């Protein structure tokens, strides 16, 4: 049996429990917990004049009702602004329960605790909140006009304003370069709002242990370690008295990286106050109106280019709608601004964004996190240049690509981690070549002509992107071999379906030379690992994968040292195969890793037969001149290490699609979808492909179906799965994938992140293909048949 599992399509170890109904998601826990429901604002902007709970007091099973006025100490303050930035001059966050003003439909106003959720909702329906209506601010352009304000103390509704400028090699500014360019174009692009929409909403379950004066909290979160710190700070508890666990999480896609959500501090607080287990499970409507959205931007673009389509200057001005609050800072528009550059080297670049308040749900990262908008901008620009010059769209891209010998390539900007935007490795011309071959780019004109002869309209499009993955600051891993030979791996970041239990076990099994069956992995449990950042930005495999590999290497070194003593051999001559340490070439001179684990922990007491070998009279190998635990070593066969990269590693991908549009109904069908993807070395190709499939499906949703339909009053008109159209199997094309592996030189495993990749270029690809089919410029996404029909009428 081989233990070299890195790179193999190993079947997922998570699945055994998930396909038999034995997964433990948040609402599966705490069967006897009290249930929480919230009274949420029905208005987008209003002042709370009065809250009358009297009618609710008689509800059977009611336990407690809380408003902002009940909140003590730090809990009564606004929630944290997680990622401050100097350009975010007017950052604002919400209170856990609204204090005087509500700024979007869905903002929590009153918290009700009752025996079960039905009764809690009964009580909510009887609570009367008297609102004084204020003028809602809806739509980013309306908000920028600032006729009305979302926050009275934020002039112009502008939360942040940031300009980044990279001059050309000859020192010209982007605007100068555009002025001097042989060709220029100017246009506007629009991207609509969508949202992560994990099938499981958020949820929090808290147990207060009065005897121990400690709190255990389960949350459907992407960052249990940070939720823990937030709870300790908000409730004034010592950190060691708070533990937070992310159980099985039913999808995240970004929305669960935001923390602490109001509920993540309120539910633990109530549990402690009441001395009872308390649980809140978000329902779908709550998720629509009180979690996060993303994507909404308006972009104004000016570009100057030469006869070959080389971009000489690019000037982009972005209006970014960040909703009512900015708990996650301005990460999304920063990513748009920086990742917009994609795989290209352009002459001079200027990007300016204003991050604007509106009376809508807050905007925080959704898989892709600003990149889909940036890629939409750059790739629409490339297509417009090609159209203007009458060149093939792949030629224009090829003329601008960074070449393989130009790495590391410095884009001259500051990335979302506050570090330089330097691409570590890639082979973009090869990726483009592979994509053209996969989709059959060069033979498409014949295909299109043949279709036209049958009265069918088809078009082809492509889009390229570069994705900064594996952002720091760090992750850690702990690896312990116990005396039964089992390997226990833990890391602090969380899992939401990425298969971490499998890929981290593959890494540990490969590094340690043990069968994967011996390895178990725990993520997102602060009892096991307290230091972590979280799962976002396609970082888990890169960060925790490398940290676990490094921790395994420590364990391996220690195991070899102990085994060398026992076998009277040189550690350099030892190998570990199938969990047995042996002298290379001499399998008989061996000792099981389990025995090494026993010997690693000098014992006084034998608790079983195996343990006798490590007791003081067992005549072990240790010399009488040295202490049983030598200086600089620790008992136990375990190791802990951290991986902290100097900067992000940059993955790349290129997608192409062929679409057909119906001449009568304007229905849009994706006939083929091709992906070339480079995320460095693959740990598990099956899982990487799965990530790409899921990303593309979400991208198809964003390109053709999903938008948050707010009316002028700030009411979300489609806050249900009936009206917010997510793709079913009938809407997602078969995805053809090809992999290119350009290892990252930045980390020991040579890997890059893959979690977000699939979603990033889809809107740009579909827009390009529809444009090619219809001959109509497609400058806004998503596009429905009805939108396309109207575009035909306008341009007809």
């Amino acid at each position: 049996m081989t233990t070299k599992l890195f790179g193999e399509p190993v079947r997922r170890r998570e699945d055994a429990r998930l396909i038999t109904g034995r997964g433990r998601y948040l609402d599966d826990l705490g069967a006897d917990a009290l249930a929480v429901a919230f009274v949420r604002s029905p208005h987008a902007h209003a002042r709370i004049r009065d809250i009358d709970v009297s009618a609710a007091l008689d509800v059977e099973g009611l336990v407690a009702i809380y408003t902002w006025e009940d909140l003590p100490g730090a809990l009564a303050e606004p929630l944290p602004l997680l990622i401050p930035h100097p350009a975010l001059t007017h950052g604002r966050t919400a209170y856990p329960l609204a204090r005087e003003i509500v700024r979007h439909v869905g903002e929590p106003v009153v918290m009700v605790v009752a025996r079960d959720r039905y009764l809690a909702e009964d009580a909510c329906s009887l609570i009367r909140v008297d609102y004084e209506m204020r003028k809602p601010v809806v739509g980013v352009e309306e908000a920028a006009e600032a006729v009305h304000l979302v926050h009275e103390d934020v002039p112009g509704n502008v939360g942040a304003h940031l300009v980044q400028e990279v001059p050309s090699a000859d020192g010209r500014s982007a605007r100068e370069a555009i002025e001097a360019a042989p060709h220029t174009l100017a246009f506007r692009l629009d991207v609509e709002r969508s949202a992560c929409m994990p099938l499981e909403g958020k949820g929090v379950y808290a147990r207060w242990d009065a005897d121990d004066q400690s709190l255990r909290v389960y949350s459907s979160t992407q960052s249990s370690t940070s939720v823990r710190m937030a709870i300790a700070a908000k409730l004034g508890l010592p950190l060691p008295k708070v533990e937070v666990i992310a159980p099985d999480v039913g999808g995240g896609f970004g929305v669960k990286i935001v923390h602490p959500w109001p509920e993540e501090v309120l539910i633990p607080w109530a549990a402690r106050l009441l001395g009872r287990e308390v649980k809140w499970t978000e329902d779908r409507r709550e998720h629509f109106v009180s979690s996060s959205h993303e994507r909404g931007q308006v972009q104004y673009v000016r570009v100057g280019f030469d006869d070959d389509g080389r971009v000489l200057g690019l000037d982009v001005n972005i209006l970014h709608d960040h909703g009512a609050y900015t708990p996650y800072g301005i990460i999304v528009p920063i990513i748009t601004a920086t990742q917009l550059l994609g795989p290209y080297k352009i002459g001079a670049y200027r990007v300016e964004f204003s991050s604007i308040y509106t009376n809508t749900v807050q905007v925080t990262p959704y898989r892709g996190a600003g990149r889909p908008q940036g890629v939409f901008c750059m790739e629409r620009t490339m297509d417009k240049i090609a159209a203007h010059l009458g060149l093939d769209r792949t030629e224009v891209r090829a003329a601008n690509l960074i070449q393989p010998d130009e790495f590391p390539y410095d884009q001259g900007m500051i990335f979302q981690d506050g570090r330089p935007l330097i691409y570590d490795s890639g082979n973009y011309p090869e990726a483009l070549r592979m994509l053209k071959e996969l989709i059959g780019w060069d033979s498409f004109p014949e295909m299109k002509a043949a279709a036209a002869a049958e009265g069918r309209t088809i078009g082809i499009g492509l889009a390229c992107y570069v994705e900064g993955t594996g952002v720091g600051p760090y992750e850690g891993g702990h690896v312990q071999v116990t005396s039964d030979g089992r390997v226990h791996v833990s890391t602090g970041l969380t899992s939401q379906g990425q298969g971490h239990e499998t890929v981290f076990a593959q890494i540990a099994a490969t590094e340690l030379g043990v069968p994967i069956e011996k390895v178990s992995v725990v993520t997102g449990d602060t009892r096991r690992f307290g230091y972590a950042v979280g799962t976002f930005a396609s970082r888990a495999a890169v960060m925790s994968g490398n940290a676990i590999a490094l921790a395994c290497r420590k364990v391996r070194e220690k195991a070899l040292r102990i085994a060398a003593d026992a076998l009277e051999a040189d550690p350099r001559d030892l190998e570990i195969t199938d969990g047995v340490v042996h002298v290379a070439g001499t399998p008989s001179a061996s000792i099981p890793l389990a025995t090494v684990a026993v010997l690693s922990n000098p014992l006084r007491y034998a608790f079983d037969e195996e343990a006798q070998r490590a007791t003081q009279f067992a005549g072990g190998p240790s010399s009488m001149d040295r202490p049983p635990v030598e200086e600089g070593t620790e008992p136990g066969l375990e190791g802990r290490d951290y991986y902290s990269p100097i900067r992000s590693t940059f993955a790349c991908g290129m997608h192409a699609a062929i679409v057909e549009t119906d001449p009568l109904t304007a229905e849009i069908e994706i006939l083929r979808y091709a992906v070339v993807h480079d995320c460095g070395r693959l740990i598990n190709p099956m899982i990487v492909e799965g990530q790409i499939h899921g990303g593309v499906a979400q991208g198809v949703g964003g390109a053709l179906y999903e938008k948050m339909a707010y009316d002028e009053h700030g009411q979300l008109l489609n806050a249900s799965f009936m009206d917010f159209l997510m793709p079913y199997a009938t809407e997602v094309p078969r995805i053809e994938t090809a992999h290119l592996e350009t290892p990252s030189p930045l980390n020991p495993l040579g890997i890059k992140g893959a979690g977000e990749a699939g979603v990033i270029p889809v809107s740009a690809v579909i827009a390009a293909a529809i444009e090619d089919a219809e001959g109509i410029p497609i400058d806004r996404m998503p596009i429905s048949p009805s939108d396309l029909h109207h575009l035909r009428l306008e341009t007809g």
Partner: protein
Amino acid sequence: MNHPITLTVNGVLREATVPARRLLSDCLRHDLGLTGTHVGCEHGVCGACTVLLDGEPVRSCLMFAVTADGHEITTVEGLAAADGTLSPVQRGFAECHGLQCGFCTPGFLCTVTAFLRENAAPTDEEVVEAISGNLCRCTGYQNIIKAVHRAAEIQAETQGGEAGR
């Protein structure tokens, strides 16, 4: 007012006393402790809560528990054989990476179990049609489609024995 009901769930006679408004999904999850059935939208669109009622797939979030009184229900917990042997559909999903977060999976498993009983060797189009009432946000469906075909294969291989469980 509470009502006593009797359900046969996964072959076991279960009794519960529930208010008239208790949804079948909540009854299964909270009264009977069968938390494998998940609730994703609470109004019958996502299919995560799909269970088999007298063998037919139904959305347990669209049915009151009292309505199911006297009926037979199979949930995801009841798909494997009593000895723990996975059903062909469960095996297909595990072999083909047909799930990621796993939250929608119980609904898919129940839907597909019923589908393959009706159509043991479906075409691609028939598979897509069969699962087109279930939402998955993770997989992009491609591996689910593959999993259904694989399940059909496994079912055919094991036909005559425990087939179609």
